[in-house]
């Protein structure tokens, strides 16, 4: 049933990349528990706007948990306290009256803050550029059923391909590492026969790019897996490690 709750928000406000930024406090009154977290922010923003203040900048788009655009660290948890849930799918019924909620942006050297809760995740695009693809020009593909793919491989590949590129893994990792993101992409492609030919090249190129972008190193803390809204497993990181060693020690890739 709908309830209305009152909350205290501590929101990270930062004018731009060079600004130092600070937590500011807002009262969120009469918040319907049926609202999503982002709708709650919408309400605050409407109030701020009418009060002549600047609304809180936050990224969002599809609001159905698939585009990967939204995300903030809520009380220390990327995308908030619910498992397997993006911020846009988090609903206010999971909070109680008079809660204090800390809302902070993804924090990583690789993700520069643009404004308030908005960060630049271009590093994830650069990782895909480095090798997160299969080189198949349009037009040259054989019939789709020419190469059978074992159902189990297709399913495993899908589990990894479900990544929405939100960056929560980086935000959650105590070391701000991007291994789950890279592991998911390398796994998705290497599990399919179509991705095999470039496997060695891809593993080296993506790891090299990852190391150059300022992410931390994986220390198997498993926070990424626990926070991933698509619940992508760290077995994909182990697979990335294998693929990387294969590429480095047993292939011709320099």
């Amino acid at each position, binding site marked *: 049933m709908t309830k209305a709750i009152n909350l205290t928000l501590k929101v990270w406000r930062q004018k731009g990349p060079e600004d130092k930024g600070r937590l500011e406090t807002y009262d969120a009154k009469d918040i319907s528990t049926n609202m999503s977290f982002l709708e709650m922010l919408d309400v605050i923003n409407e109030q701020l706007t009418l009060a002549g203040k600047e609304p809180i900048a936050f990224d969002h788009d599809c609001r159905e948990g698939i585009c990967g655009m939204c995300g903030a660290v809520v009380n220390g948890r990327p995308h908030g306290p619910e498992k397997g849930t993006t911020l846009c799918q988090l609903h206010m019924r999971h909070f109680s009256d008079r809660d204090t909620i800390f809302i902070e942006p993804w924090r990583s050297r690789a993700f520069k803050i643009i404004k308030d809760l908005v960060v630049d995740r271009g590093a994830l695009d650069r990782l895909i550029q480095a090798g997160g693809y299969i080189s198949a020009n349009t037009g040259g593909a054989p019939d789709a059923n020419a190469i059978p793919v074992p159902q189990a491989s297709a399913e495993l590949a899908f589990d990894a391909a479900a990544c929405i590129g939100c960056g929560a893994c980086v935000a959650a990792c105590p070391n701000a590492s991007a291994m789950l993101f890279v592991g998911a992409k390398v796994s998705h492609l290497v599990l399919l026969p179509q991705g095999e030919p470039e496997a060695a090249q891809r593993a080296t190129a993506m790891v090299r790019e990852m190391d150059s972008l300022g992410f931390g190193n994986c220390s198997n803390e498993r926070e990424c897996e626990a926070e991933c809204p698509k619940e992508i497993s760290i077995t994909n990181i182990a697979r990335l490690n294998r693929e990387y*060693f294969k590429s480095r020690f047993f292939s011709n890739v320099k």
Partner: protein
Amino acid sequence: MNWFIHTIGSSIGKKLLMAITGLGFCGFLAVHLAGNLTIYGGKASFNSYSEHLHALEPLVTIAEWGLLTFAVVHVLTGAVLFYQNLKARPVRYSVNKSAGGRSLGSRTMPYTGILLLAFVIFHLINFHFADRTVTTIYAIVSGAFKHPAYVVVYIIAVAIAAVHVSHGFWSAFQTIGANHPKYMPLVRTIGTVFSLMVGIGFGAIPVYLFIFV
């Protein structure tokens, strides 16, 4: 060999170094513990173990240099990783909360590591580099553990080692890529059992010596 330097210098390469050296230490701990158990057989049994071990020269010296190399690699790489990981998040969160992935072991790896390093040096000075020309290793060990302070220090140290191993063991498998849904639960169980063995096995010796000898 340029490619090799690049490989071990990469983030995954450094982790590989940690995993291999770490697993090496796990092996060493197992052997060390097995040897130490002879202390329950009494003075003669323990001294005989020590003599037999040193009769294996030059293998022991080789092993010692090997362990020293492993230690240098493990400590230096660990330090580099710690520093890099710290730098990867220049502004920290005001609220930190785990989603349940981290464990006591994983959370404290760098710190338990530093404490272990200090302990190992202490331990080596006490027992390894002790002058054994006029006395036996049994006398040195049993003598040391007559002091309650030594007992306490050792118990704390092996507890720290156990915590370090509780994450290190399975983590090494994950890093070398050996994570399979069928076998990982077993690896994790072995890791837990092994860390308990390290803690209880090594920890019981000072207590035994303090109380019964």
